[in-house]
């Protein structure tokens, strides 16, 4: 029977024995793909789910594609990575990360829906996948190379042409193989898709990421450091296969509907439209482009490219925060706008080449600078550092800092184990109380969307495993705050906006706009808890398993349409419409939410086995003890709230802190709604069995960590 939308096989890589094993995808079909598939595989193949250090040889990393990768589903080209990470505090949780580009698509064309990485190689290896032919190759010659060099060399080793005009190249190893239809591997014009680590991963640092092509990095979880511990330098994949689609006509029709209805007409676009999906392509760099000689560059199947490849020869495919991790210090020394742009793009390249997560810099650089100003950090200081702090802001300093962090040198030796861990080692716990070190949840830096204002971001992060980095609702802040800041038209007024969004919050908060009210009176309410549930379940399935892009989905509201309603949950171009066309499923939008709930519960079971208890689920002290007074970008934080008369208005949420006790009550409310034990936060048998996870309940019970059913 054809498994529409799937390649049909999963590849297990036993690094210890250097053995490749194929298993059928069909058994895991109910998990969808991406994260769901990854969690199911982790659950099955990780022999010890109590481990709390990603470097442990028992750790299992899963790289998983989606049935939608490479199928024309709009902006669904990402790839998911799961496993025990290396970048949280106090426990390295089972966690996730993701990256864009073309790896997921190529993996499926090579015949696999996912790769399960197990064990530890005795010496550095890279894995060569060509149409289900898998080989473990010696990586001793690649170890120590940066991510670009490693990919270039692997391309050569695989035999891919260096230039673009060489044409079709043959994947066969001999002429005889090509002539025999049973063995013919086919031809391609494409380059292998390679996922690799750089020195930051090789040195097993918490900042080690997995880099694909020039600028796609799965960064936040520290999986690069995990690969380093496993002696795995890279995985290269090239395939010439195809993915059978259940209803190609419906798929093409839905894509056409997307472009004709929801996306701004590229010949006459509305540049100021309010939508996630429907914007014209625009480079999402935090610095202006150096000049006009570049193209937008997109992940496979995306309707609106957000990266660029430039004529200047640097900054390729890097976007978002990576292009501004060094912005604040660079701004102080750059003598011109052009120099500021160059420093930032070159600093971005330096990090990408080392395979280094740059999110530490969002608030971490402020903290380091504070330590320098206080006289604690620097040459001959209590925290010794030979870095040229007097050159802070220059490209030279950025490159030296990146090197130190990637190679465990200077302060990088301590920071490699985690920034909050380093704060404790340096006796700087107080900085987490004053807010000088704004690492708000699980030892990770606050994202620029402070939990004291945008509560769903903070709640979702602390109730999960990491900074969520999910901009589903955050677009509200972006749109209305920008409008206020730059005196732009308010395209949709508050009441209409929350009404449209609430229509799509099915099932938990459907037509309950009060779930979006983050005002002082309702920020801990059950309504908000329902919104956070919806968010957790939506993202676990649609965003992290179906792998719709965070920047383009969900499309709640969209001013390109006559009624301002976006594509999300719509019956012509909604998330589930593409899923059904590709897989042949008959899911409703709510069915997808329910699959997300199942994945979320399995994740919580893993965290529970790792030792989680509700007592651990709290923000850094500064979130409760100081007020949110200074935004990363704007001096106000606008959000729709109800005023004293119950009328919806846009209101500034700055200037407040979270109430510790009320947040505890919120957690109780959330746990109750989720069907978890309100005293421990652990899943209960009833909840798990209701999700067809009796086996998981049994494992928790055996470990003495099954949640108790309590009468409310």
């Amino acid at each position, binding site marked *: 029977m054809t498994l529409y939308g799937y390649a049909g096989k999963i590849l297990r890589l036993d690094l210890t024995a250097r053995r490749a094993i194929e298993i059928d995808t069909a058994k895991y079909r109910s998990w969808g793909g991406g994260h769901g598939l990854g969690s199911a595989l982790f659950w099955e193949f990780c022999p010890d789910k109590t481990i709390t250090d990603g470097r442990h040889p028992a750790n299992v990393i899963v790289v998983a594609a989606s049935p939608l990768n*490479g199928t*024309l589903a709009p902006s669904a080209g990402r790839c998911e990575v799961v496993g025990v990470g290396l970048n949280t505090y106090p426990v390295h949780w089972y966690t996730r990360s993701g990256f864009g580009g073309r790896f997921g698509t190529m993996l499926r064309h090579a015949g696999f829906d996912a790769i399960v990485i197990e064990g530890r190689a005795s010496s550095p290896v890279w894995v060569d996948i060509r149409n289900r032919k898998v080989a473990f190759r010696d990586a001793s010659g690649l170890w120590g190379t940066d991510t670009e060099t490693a990919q270039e060399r692997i391309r050569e080793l695989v035999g891919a042409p260096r230039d673009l005009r060489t044409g079709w190249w043959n994947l066969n190893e001999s002429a005889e193989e090509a002539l025999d239809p049973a063995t013919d591997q*086919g031809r391609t014009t494409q380059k292998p898709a390679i996922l690799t680590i750089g020195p930051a991963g090789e040195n097993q640092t918490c900042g080690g990421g997995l880099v694909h092509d020039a600028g796609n990095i799965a960064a936040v979880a520290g999986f690069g450091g995990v690969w380093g511990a496993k002696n795995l330098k890279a995985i290269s994949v090239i395939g010439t296969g*195809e993915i059978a689609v259940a209803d190609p006509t419906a798929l*093409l029709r839905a894509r*056409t509907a997307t*472009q004709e209805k929801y996306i701004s007409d590229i010949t006459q676009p509305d540049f100021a439209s309010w939508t996630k999906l429907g914007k014209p392509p*625009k480079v999402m760099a935090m610095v202006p482009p150096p000049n006009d000689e570049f193209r937008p560059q997109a992940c496979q199947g995306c309707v609106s490219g957000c990266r660029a490849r430039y*004529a200047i020869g640097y900054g390729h495919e890097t976007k978002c925060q990576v292009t501004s991790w060094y912005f604040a210090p660079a701004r102080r020394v750059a003598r011109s706008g052009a120099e500021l742009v160059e420093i930032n793009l070159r600093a971005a390249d330096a990090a990408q080449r080392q395979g280094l997560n740059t999110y530490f810099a969002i608030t971490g650089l402020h903290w380091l600078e504070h330590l320098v100003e206080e006289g604690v950090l620097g040459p001959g200081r209590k925290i010794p550092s030979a870095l040229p702090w007097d050159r802070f802001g220059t490209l030279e300093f950025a490159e030296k800092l990146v090197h130190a962090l990637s190679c465990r040198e200077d302060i990088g030796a301590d920071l490699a184990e985690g920034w909050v861990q380093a704060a404790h080692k340096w006796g700087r716990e107080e900085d987490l109380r004053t807010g000088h070190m704004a690492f708000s949840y699980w030892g990770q830096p606050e994202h620029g969307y402070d939990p004291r204002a945008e509560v769903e971001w903070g709640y979702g992060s602390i109730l999960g495993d990491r900074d969520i980095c999910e901009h589903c609702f955050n677009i509200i802040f972006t749109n209305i705050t920008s409008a206020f800041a730059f005196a732009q038209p308010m395209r949709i007024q508050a009441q209409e906006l929350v009404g449209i969004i609430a229509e799509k919050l099915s099932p938990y908060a459907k037509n309950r706009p009060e779930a979006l009210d983050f005002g002082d009176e309702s920020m801990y309410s059950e309504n908000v808890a329902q919104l956070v549930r919806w968010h957790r379940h939506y993202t676990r399935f649609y965003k992290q398993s179906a792998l719709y892009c965070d920047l383009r989905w969900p499309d709640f509201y969209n001013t390109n349409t006559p009624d301002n309603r976006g594509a999300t949950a719509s019956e012509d171009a909604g998330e589930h419409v593409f899923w059904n066309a590709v897989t042949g499923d008959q899911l409703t939008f709510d069915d997808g939410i329910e699959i997300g709930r199942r994945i979320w519960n399995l994740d919580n079971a893993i965290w529970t086995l790792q030792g989680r208890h509700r007592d651990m689920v709290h923000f850094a002290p500064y979130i409760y003890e100081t007020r949110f007074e200074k935004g990363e970008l704007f001096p106000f934080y606008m959000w729709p709230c109800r005023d004293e008369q119950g009328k919806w208005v846009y209101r500034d949420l700055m200037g407040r802190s979270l109430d510790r006790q009320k947040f505890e009550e919120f957690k109780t409310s959330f746990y109750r709604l989720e069907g978890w034990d309100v005293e421990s936060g652990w899943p209960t048998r009833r909840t798990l069995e209701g999700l067809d996870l009796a086996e998981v309940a049994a494992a928790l019970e055996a470990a003495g960590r099954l949640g108790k059913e309590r009468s409310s």
Partner: protein
Amino acid sequence: MTGKPARTEGTTRRRFLATVAASGCAMLARPGVLLADGRFVIPDAEGFLVVDTKKCQGCGSCMMACSLAHSGAASYTKSRIQIVQDSFGDWPDDLFIAQCRQCRNAPCVEVCPTGANHVDTEHGNVRRVDPELCIGCRMCIQACPFTPARLQWDQGQRKSQKCDLCVDTPYLDAKGGPGGVQACVRVCPVRAISFTREMPSQDLADSSYQVNLRDWVWKRLGMTTK
């Protein structure tokens, strides 16, 4: 993999004879004029795809749409249009679009021994491959004067295939071919592919099929229109 299984049977005598017979008929039916100097002249195609490689965002949507519309499966290898790109290359040399030119002299048509690769007079003289007649000799692929070759080898079916401007697209719910819809044109988010009835220059340089489709919108988005 869910791809179609590779065909393993060899060419039987019966199949060979049938193919030869079909080839003869096809050759006889082939439109065109044999000139005194031996050149075989065929009618011009009534439609062409032109592209702007400087504008393409490299999303591969055209490739996916092509293979889906023609075969119902998502495949790069079976796409009639190929986007070739290098993540580490510098604009504009980081990306190349290889599409069939529907050549005036069409060496791929001329060289086909069975008439499988033919001029479809019912559909705007599009040069296309009839899979029923193709014997998989690959001569058309070798005859294509461009690199990468604008014909593809279907490793599963053991046949050649090429762009037909969407004449034969059973999964596209619109009429294809000249005068109709081309899946790649329709799906391109930035309109870096365009259909034209005006035949571009037939010199062998790619430049004649490379056009500038960047307009004021592109400029407003911060990118050059030069």
